[in-house]
């Protein structure tokens, strides 16, 4: 609503961290939270105890000085498990985001560019998108043995079409820009065209989209683990900690609430970062999601 000032020529302002944060507090909050969580995931496990160490004598102890987050029904240290769990969640989130962005980018560029491929690939993407993602993921997992890699693959597959759609839409809109049309008319080679003109334009929305993919992947992983169809139960992922603690929610709520809070915070951080980046990089995307 500041349209009135928009057409006033303004003197360029110097970049300052303070004003950047003021203008984009979501990016700042999201980034700081995420950096802290990544630091915890990377460094944390070296400082906490063994997350797998079972001590039946100390089972279901409430949070205390000795066990900051209490213990679970096998006497395992929920603090150590939660810290390790951050690793699993971030690995799943980041690798799903990276892989599905890469695949989505390739397919999206191909679809947007080679029109003959488009119809075929997009029909497949529509089909995959018609299947709710958790359902698709568990169906894929049923057919294989459980493992972190399989979980990542199973989450990537339903996420790819979403990325493809975003990339393809952008490629199509860029393709109709006069400068690309003239480049095509001028005989620029396809590969060069893609690399030079199209790719850079897709990056911003792709980054924004991949933050959402990352957040949703973490939630899906937790959901799958919660249902018993996720990463193998001996790996302390947040979903597994919650799944194993849910039986004891009433007598040991910390086994659910603490990893749940960590999961929510991480997803929140990634979402805030995504929102902030979207506002900054690609206001057009603001209307979708």
């Amino acid at each position, binding site marked *: *609503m*500041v349209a*009135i*000032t928009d*057409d*006033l*020529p*303004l*003197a360029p*302002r110097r970049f300052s961290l303070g*004003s950047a944060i*003021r*203008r984009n507090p979501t990016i700042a909050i999201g980034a700081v939270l995420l950096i802290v969580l990544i630091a915890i995931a990377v460094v944390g496990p070296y400082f906490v105890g063994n997350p797998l160490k079972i001590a039946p004598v100390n089972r279901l102890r409430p949070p205390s000085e000795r066990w900051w987050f209490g213990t679970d029904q096998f006497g395992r240290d929920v603090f150590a498990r939660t810290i390790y769990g951050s690793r699993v969640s971030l690995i799943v989130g980041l690798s799903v985001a990276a892989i599905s962005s890469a695949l989505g980018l390739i397919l999206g560029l191909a679809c947007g560019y080679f029109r003959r491929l488009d119809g075929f690939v997009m029909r497949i993407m529509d089909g995959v998108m018609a299947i709710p993602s958790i359902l698709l993921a568990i169906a894929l997992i049923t057919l294989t043995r459980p493992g972190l890699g399989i979980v990542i693959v199973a989450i990537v597959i339903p996420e790819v079409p979403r990325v493809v759609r975003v990339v393809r839409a952008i490629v199509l809109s860029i393709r109709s820009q006069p400068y690309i049309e003239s480049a095509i008319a001028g005989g620029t080679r396809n590969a060069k065209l893609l690399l030079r003109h199209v790719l850079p334009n897709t990056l911003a929305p792709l980054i924004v989209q991949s933050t959402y993919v990352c957040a949703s992947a973490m939630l899906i992983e937790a959901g799958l683990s919660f249902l018993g169809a996720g990463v193998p139960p001996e790996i302390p992922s947040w979903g597994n900690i919650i799944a194993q603690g849910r039986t004891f929610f009433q007598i040991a709520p910390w086994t659910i609430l603490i990893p749940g809070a960590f999961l929510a915070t991480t997803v929140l951080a990634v979402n805030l970062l995504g929102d902030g980046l979207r506002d900054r990089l690609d206001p057009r995307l603001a209307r979708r999601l």
Partner: protein
Amino acid sequence: MTALLEVRDLCTQFSTLDGVVRAVDGVSFDVARGETLGIVGESGCGKSVTALSILRLIPPETGRIASGSIHFEGNDLATLGEREMKRLRGHRISMIFQEPMTSLNPVLTVGTQIAENVVRHLDVSWKQARERAREMLDLVRIADSRRRIDEYPHQLSGGMRQRVMIAMALSCDPQVLIADEPTTALDVTIQAQILDLMLELKEKTGTAIVLITHDLGVVAETAERVVVMYAGRKVEEAPVDALFERPLHPYTRGLMAAIPRLDVDAESDGRRPRLQEIPGLVPRLTQPIVGCAFASRCGLATDRCRTTAPPVVDAGGGHTVACWEARP
């Protein structure tokens, strides 16, 4: 003749991340019953904000009328309650906007959009209001009004949409019609038709028009009196003939020099003289401007101009100007 609308020392401000923008800074003018007043200036000079201020359509999140008064029919619109304002808008004072493409709601039929104004302000049924809408469409010379009334804006051409806007604005016989760049977005031929239509309807209804434009040509053709604005301030006001004959403010003169003129002979090499630009940038409105706002771009500026704001001087015959160096 007493003024219908009296604007006095109007100041409208916006808060932005860069500070407070003084978009309108102490503007005063009158509009007489049935008169056509032109307000001209570059984009960003505050003329649109002035118009929006009169109807109090300044977005409340960021903007506000900081001071001044707007007297109309015994009320001060600057402080009138929102309920009363709502009753007044579209009824006593209405407004049409620059972009007929976007100023009509794309998902409602034009009939609905006209009729809802009538229903809102006049004590009539929807059916009567629809009939009034159809009459208005006829009045603005839209052919086949019976069919058009149920069409959506995207089915109409740009000129037709602006006619619909005018029909809507005049549907409750307002005292004042504020037209903010009503023709800018239209083809030249359509522009003339629309302006003619507005003048014709003015004659019929006796509505006063406040015509806001950056186009001196439009002003010359339609307005009776002209207010020239620069950087949120009124720099000159005069009857239209007086202004064009004898512009007093250096800025007004600059504007006129920037109009391509066909009546000046081509130079010997067959080219018309280069249009003159006004050098320099409009000052930023986030800081209070000391002295004359135009001083930084004015060839005649003196030290006095840069330190003390010039008073409004009466040059006779309703011609006023705010300039130290103006020679009446």
